[in-house]
Every structure is written in C-alpha cells, then in structure tokens.
C-alpha cells in the first residue's frame, strides 16, 4: 500500500508537469494547427530563467524573501520571460509562414528549437543547473509534508502539484469565461469565419502564444524545483508534453491535462509494478499508447475529424 501511494504521488507530480507542457502544444495546435516543436525549448529557457532569478534572490541557502514568495517570484518571472519569448517566436518564425504549406512552419519550429538550445549553450554553457532547494532549511521542503498511510508527501511535491492545478484552473477560466477566450475558441473552430465576425486573429494568436509559453515557463520551474536542468532538457520534456497532448486529443484543453496525467501515472505504475518496468518503462508505456491511438485515433478527449464528402 505504501508503495502504491508513493507511485501515485510520483505519477501525479510527473503528470502535472507533463500536463502543463502539453497545454502549450494543444493551445497552439488548436488555434494555428501548428505543431510547435520549439515548445520544449521554451520550457528549457523557463528553467534557466527560474534559476537566474533564484540566484538573484539569494538562492535557497540565503533567500532574501520568504520561501513561498521566492518560489512564486521565480515562477512568475519565468512565465513572464517565456511569454515574451513566445511572442517573439510567433512574430519572427511563424507569422511570416502563416499562409505557407503546413510543412514550412514545422521546419521553422524545429529551427527555432535548435536555435534556442544552441543559443542557451553559447550563453550559459553546458553545465547543468540545480536549484538546490534541498539546501533550504536542512532539506525541510523535502522532509516535511503530508503523511498518508506511512508515506510522506513532501512540501515540494505538494507545491508542484497544487501550482500546476491552479494554473490549469486559471487557464480553463481564461479560455471559457473571458471574451479573449471566446475569441480563441472561435478562431480554433474556424479562423476565417472568426475573422469575418470581427475577431482580430493576430491578437488571438499572440495571446495563445503568451498563454502556452507562460505555462511552459511555469512547468520549467515546477520541474527544476526537484531535478537539475540543462540546455538539452527541452527535447525530452517537449517530447513527453507533445505525446501527452496527442494522447489527450491535441487541440483539447481538458485532453492535454488528462493526457499529461495519464502519461505520468503510466510511467510511474509501469516502473513500479511491471516486471523489469524500470528498465523498459518507455517500451511498455509507449506500446500502450500506440494501442490507444489505434483504437482511438483522436486521443482520449479529442474530437473525431469528420469530413463531409
């Protein structure tokens, strides 16, 4: 039972980060039908921004502000910078290709991905960066927390999970309860019709990139709070986020959330319970996901692509 709870907590932590990344993919795909493969590297930039701000605020050993404020400021700073980065990427790498064949922006996205990872290495080197939050108050963020059936759920994991869910709720509110969100949904449904109804498409797309990239920045901080980051981390993180988005049904916001959690839980339980699961977790998990996609092409919550003939 203890192990089950531990694996569940692990899955929830992993899954909530995957979900935040997946949301960025799904938002952009929903509005632009573009697979933004630079998204993983925006996530990576977010981890580095968070690291820089953390150091500026005294680091975990000598924080200049209370720890809750420190983590909040680090997250907000990362979100702000990555949101700005998203705007720049959209303006210079995607907008000029908006009417080009679909393959062109895809190549542009891959180009931006390499540009970001190589530029970051040029600027900051290849040495991994560790937030070192274990150093805070003798590891209290790791050692204190909720006790459930003999398992301690550390504060840092609780922070990660709660922050991710709060951000998802805010996103849901923005998309479903605001005028801009309504414009996003309309653009996603039919861009040309939305434009004819007076919706400023450029503005909607920029806002979508702001939202998606800010979520990547937040995910970056949530991730790097617990494990070291480096300039190449974006590839794997982006891949997992993309898979989560597809599994959930790309273009569907609840789908991205669900896809992230499904992927997180699948990885954790397979590693925990399947024979040789730690060794071959990717094989087991992705075989399962292939089967899922065979039987449900549109993903868990995606809409089937119905074409009238």
């Amino acid at each position, binding site marked *: 039972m203890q*192990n089950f709870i*531990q*694996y569940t*907590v*692990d899955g929830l*932590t*992993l899954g909530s980060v995957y979900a935040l990344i997946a949301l960025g993919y799904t938002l952009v795909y929903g509005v632009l039908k573009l697979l933004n493969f630079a998204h993983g590297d925006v996530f990576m930039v977010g981890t580095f921004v968070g690291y820089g701000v953390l150091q500026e605020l005294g680091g975990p050993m000598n924080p200049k502000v209370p720890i809750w404020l420190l983590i909040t400021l680090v997250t907000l700073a990362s979100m702000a910078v990555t949101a700005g980065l998203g705007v720049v990427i959209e303006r210079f790498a995607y907008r000029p290709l908006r009417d080009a064949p679909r393959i062109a922006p895809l190549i542009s996205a891959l180009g931006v991905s390499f540009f970001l*990872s190589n530029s970051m*290495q040029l600027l900051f*080197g*290849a*040495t*991994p960066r*560790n937030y070192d939050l*274990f150093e805070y108050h003798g*590891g209290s963020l*790791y*050692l204190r927390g909720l006790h459930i059936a003999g398992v*301690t759920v*550390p504060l840092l994991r609780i922070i990660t999970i709660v922050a991710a869910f709060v951000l998802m709720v805010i996103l849901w509110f923005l998309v479903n309860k605001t005028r801009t969100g309504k414009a996003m949904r309309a653009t996603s449904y039919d861009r040309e019709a939305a434009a004819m109804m007076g919706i400023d498409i450029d503005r909607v797309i920029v806002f979508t990139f702001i939202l998606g990239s800010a979520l990547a920045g937040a995910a970056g901080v949530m*991730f790097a709070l*617990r*494990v*070291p980051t*480096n*300039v*190449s*981390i974006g*590839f*794997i993180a982006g891949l997992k986020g993309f898979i989560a988005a597809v599994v959930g049904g790309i273009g569907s916001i609840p789908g991205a959330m669900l896809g992230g959690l499904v992927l997180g839980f699948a*990885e*954790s339980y397979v*590693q*925990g319970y399947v024979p*040789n699961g*730690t*060794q071959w*977790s*990717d094989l087991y998990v992705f075989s399962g996901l292939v089967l899922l996609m065979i039987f449900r092409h549109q993903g868990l919550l995606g809409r089937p692509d119905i074409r009238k003939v």
Partner: protein
Amino acid sequence: MKKAIGLALAILATAIVAASAQGAPKASAVATAKGYNCSKTITLPFVTPITGGAGFLGAEQLSWAKYAVKTIAPQLHLKVKLVGGDTPVEQGPAPAQTLAQKYVGTASVLAVLGPSTSGAVAASTKTYYAAHIAHISPSATRTDLTKSVGGTLEGTPAFFRDVPGDYIQGPSDANFMINSLHVKKVVILDFQEPYSLGLAGAVDSVLKAHGVSTIRLSAPNTTTDYSAYVTKVPSDADIVFFPTQKPGDAQTFAQQLIEQGKKAHVFGGDGSNDSSQFKQPGSYVSNFAPDITGIPADAKLIAGWKKANPGKSVGSFGPPSYGAAQIVMTAIARACHAGHGHATRTAVLHSIKKVSIKNWILGGSFKWSTKSNDPLNAKFYIFQIQSDGSYKLVG
C-alpha cells in the same frame, strides 16, 4: 563495323579510367608514405560530450587539453590546432562514428584525443584503427576496451587510455564497500549505456562473490526523476551503486533517497565525480585521479591553467586530458623527428606506446603497461562527500 570500333573504344576508355582509379590509392600511398609535413598545422581533435547532460565533462576536458596545446606544443616545435568533436551521451554512439569518418578523411589529423566515453570509443575505434590513427581517451574506463572480457575485446591496438579501467575501479569500489563499509545489501542501478553497464557488472560480480546481496535496477539515460527507482530501494539497503556520467543525477538520487526516508547512501563512479554537482553529504564517489591540487609539483601548472580559465575550479576529468594531450604531442614530435620533418599516422601510432613522462600531472611518472594499452600501476581513489560538500579521500 563503326559500331564495333566505337564499342571497343568505349570499353578501352572505361578500362583506362578504371585502371587509373585503381592506381590512385597507390599514388596517394606514395605521397602519404612520406607523411604529413610537421611544419604545417596539425589538427588535434578531442572527441567528447560538449553538449547534453555530460557537457560539463567536455568543457573541463577541453579546457585542460587546450592548455596543454598552448604550453607544450611550442616546446615541441609543433603547430597544433585543437578542435572539439561533440558526442552528446544522449545521442548514443552515432556521433562518434560520424566524427571518426570525418577525421580519417582529414590529412592534418595524425592522432585523436578521446572519445571520452566508453560507448563512443567502442563505436569508433575500428574506424581509427583501419586508418592507423592512434586515439587516447582520458576517461573511457570500460574494461573490454583494452582487455578481453569473456572473449570479447571491443578496443583495438589503436586505442589507448591514460587512466585505469573498470577492471580496477569495479573491484576497488566493491572491496571498499565490503571491507570498509561492511555492506550486506547493495542496490546497483545502471544507466543503460556501455560505461555504466560495464562498471555495474564489475561491481556486482565482486559483491556477489563475497556473499553480498545485490539488487539490479536499470534506468534509461534520459531519466530525470528517480522517484520510482528510489521506491524500489529496500529500506535495509546500505548502498545504491549508481555509475552515471551525469553527476547531477547522482545528486538527485541521493536527495530522493532522503525524501523517501531511505538510509542507503549513493556510491557513484568516476562519471559522477564533480563536487559542484554531486555534493550530498555521506555519499561516496570513486575516481581515477587524485585531487591534483595536493600535488606540489603541479602548483605552477595549476596556476597557469587557472589564469587561462578564470573562475574555474580544478576538477578530476581535466588533468588526465592534459596528460593525454601531452602524450599525443610527444608521440607526434618523435614521429616527426624520426621522419625528418614528416610524420605518418602509423609512425605516430607506433611511437605512442614508447612515450613515458617523468613528471606526470597525476603524480609520479607515467609509463604504459606492457600487457595492454593502459597505464602502468594506476589505481582508483575513493572519496566520501563531507558536510561542506568537499571530497575527502577515504580509500
């Protein structure tokens, strides 16, 4: 008739072209038999992870090799240009193979530094050997690169290393666990790449032979969060032996052990020897090099390197890279001397094994073993991480 003559001429022309093509290597061989003109700039590639999770390794190694080139090449009257060849550990052996083909085709390359990782060596050494290019690794420690293991020898006579292999590291680490830590149960986590698998296997066999209970786990080398692996560590395990090439991952594992209330300490191999990243007090780490800051004869050299690399601290991967560059350049200089200003790759390859160095950067003197392309009388050192993050020599 005209057609027949035309056909005959075409066949003749084809034959001439084919014959001259056949003859081309011979002409080239005559040209290369004299060798490369040593007054020209010699390209010295260093194949190491420059990007990716082990990028820190390449950065440190390159900085020391660069310093060796800067200070030693002029003394040997050589003009050497050091170039980095990137082999990110996440991409497996493919980049090493591609780079080897590139360097084989570059006339100014007489020898190569690296590859730094065992997997990259295994993937490329046959290519270097076929072209008679000697290559020296300052950090690839897998045993079967220089010695046959179960009838398998991955290395070639063109491969050398100036650090001892896992045939010393594995037993050293295991014997330390048995004799000094008195372990009863050890978890061994490999990273699914050649270096890690080899070292994990070496430690596992010695521990088992001494009646220590071992549990094997295996993680893909793209893993970032080890929570599920930590959950599988029994609460009565004494040590988790984790030979990774990413010191930050060893640190993460150690912290997640504490997070889950496990008493086991992490024991890392040479790949995790980096006090800026792996610093969890109580953990252990082994390495092929001592802390050279404690060697008085190296004081001037360290001061020079620090001047060239302001703000950087001396790690354990850099000094053997300096040594490897020193050996390679000495061998090239000797081959040039013997060839009256010209050196072939074969001559350099033959002269590598004859190099010995009196004031070796890792202390004492350097000589090759007569039995393999390993250093003579080399040993591994075991450190325990202290509460201030420093490494204390314990074995």
